């Protein structure tokens, strides 16, 4: 029953919701970003970050810092917080928290398979994997030769198993097929997550539908733009779009036949929420599209905190943290490469 969650939510979820809201108050603000943008070296960045919540994680790093170290330690903080929440959670919150990490699992799988294809060392690839998406048998992915083996040897025991039914073919893995596999898996994952949230009902279902629909639509636009000019046929492209979201089904029909960015813009401008995103960019420009999408996503994620007694705050917090880590990576790279004029190109401010 929508509206009465306040009566029973706190039995199982009250403590964790309060904890995640406490974590949210530790996200970097505009003032913090202004300080960081004015740093000259990576050591300055480390000094500013040690005044924030990242302090304990960065203080023991030896002085010649690399940007990858900063990003790694910040990600470690996120992983620690996530694991703490996961071990305190009961059903269905624990399932919900696990769903949040399946996206990273898919990315890790694709990373290792692609790396193996290009003859890289498995250990090196494992270090580059995102820690939230690790699972036990991940190293054996390097052995598989085609998708059927991939599934049979490794993935059947992971939570990703049900997403594979659509993409088991006997073709050998090459770059194109791997990208198609990644997008097919992600499509199945988003649809599964959407169904799970609908089953939970109440405020969780409503807020998560909005957030996941935006994610699905954004991926549809990105798939379209990235596959312009490649050998991906229109039917294949249509198969990669998720079957929910604002663009389903008519927007997908139109996107499938787009051949350049202006046509994509024409399609998207028929939908008022996305019109404002595309209005920020002048004609012919696509570099700012990523940042515009991130800004819109951050706006919606911050709105999720306005309501109490639902699970979407956990999803929103994880995504906001990931955005913050992206911001920190961009700022560190700009500072390290002495290109501070470009810092504001890609930093998305949250509050």
């Amino acid at each position: 029953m929508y509206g009465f969650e306040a009566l029973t939510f706190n039995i199982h979820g009250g403590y964790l919701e309060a904890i995640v809201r406490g974590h949210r108050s530790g996200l970097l603000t505009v003032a913090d970003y202004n300080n960081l943008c004015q740093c000259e070296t990576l050591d300055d960045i480390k000094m500013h970050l040690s005044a924030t919540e990242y302090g304990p994680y960065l203080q023991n790093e030896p002085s010649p810092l690399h940007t990858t170290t900063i990003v790694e330690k910040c990600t470690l903080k996120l992983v620690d917080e996530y694991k703490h929440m996961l071990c305190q959670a009961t059903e269905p919150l624990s399932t919900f928290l696990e769903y949040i990490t399946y996206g990273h699992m898919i990315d890790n799988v694709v990373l290792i398979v692609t790396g193996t294809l290009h003859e890289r060392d498995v250990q090196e690839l494992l270090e580059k994997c995102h820690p939230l998406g690790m699972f036990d048998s991940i190293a054996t992915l390097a052995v598989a030769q085609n998708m059927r083996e991939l599934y049979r040897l490794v993935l059947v025991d992971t939570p990703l198993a049900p997403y594979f039914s659509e993409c088991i073919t006997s073709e050998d893995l090459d770059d194109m097929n791997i990208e198609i596999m990644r997008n097919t898996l992600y499509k199945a994952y988003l649809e599964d997550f959407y169904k799970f949230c609908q089953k939970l009902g109440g405020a969780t279902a409503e807020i998560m539908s909005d957030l996941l629909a935006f994610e699905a639509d954004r991926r549809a636009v990105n798939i379209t733009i990235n596959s312009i000019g490649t050998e991906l046929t229109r039917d294949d492209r249509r198969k990669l779009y998720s079957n929910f979201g604002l663009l389903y089904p008519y927007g997908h029909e139109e996107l499938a036949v787009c051949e350049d960015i202006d046509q994509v813009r024409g399609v998207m401008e028929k939908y008022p929420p996305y019109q404002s995103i595309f209005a920020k960019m002048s004609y012919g420009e696509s570099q700012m599209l990523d940042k515009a999408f991130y800004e819109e996503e951050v706006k919606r994620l911050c709105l999720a905190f306005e309501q109490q007694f639902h699970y979407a705050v956990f999803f929103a917090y994880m995504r906001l943290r990931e955005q913050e880590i992206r911001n920190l990576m961009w700022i560190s790279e700009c500072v390290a490469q002495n290109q501070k004029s470009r810092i504001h190109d890609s930093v998305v401010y949250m509050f």
Partner: protein
Amino acid sequence: MGESSSWSRALVQISPYTFASIGIAISIGVSVLGAAWGIYITGSSLIGAAIKAPRITSKNLISVIFCEAVAIYGVIVAIILQTKLESVSDSQLYAPESLRAGYAIFASGIIVGFANLFCGLCVGIIGSSCALSDAQNSTLFVKILVIEIFGSALGLFGVIVGIIMSSQATWPAKTA
């Protein structure tokens, strides 16, 4: 014996002592349900929020105290009601006066019990939001406290009406 039975006839055959005793039970039982419900709603949020912001604990115990007050109202009214229970002689047990007294105590118990149930719920939910927002911005505490005070007035309304109801619960005088 030849008279048709109906629910209304069955209801008036129930002894007024039963009604009065159930009223007293509801008054304390349901009030405590409301207070407990409110306390756990507030308490779980308060504990979680206090990890990041330990300064909120002492101030936000006020929310828990408001919920507890709801249970105390229930106890007070239950004690008052039980002093209104008197024995009447057998012949007068089903006299209209007796029934009136029994029903009055029953109604008083229901009034107080359910008013306190919803008051406890209300204060509990507001207390939870109060703890979470105080952890982020300490100027909000006093403002949300005003909302809680209005919420706890609901329980008082119930107690007042309940006591007025029960004050007219006069059992028939014992005839010699």
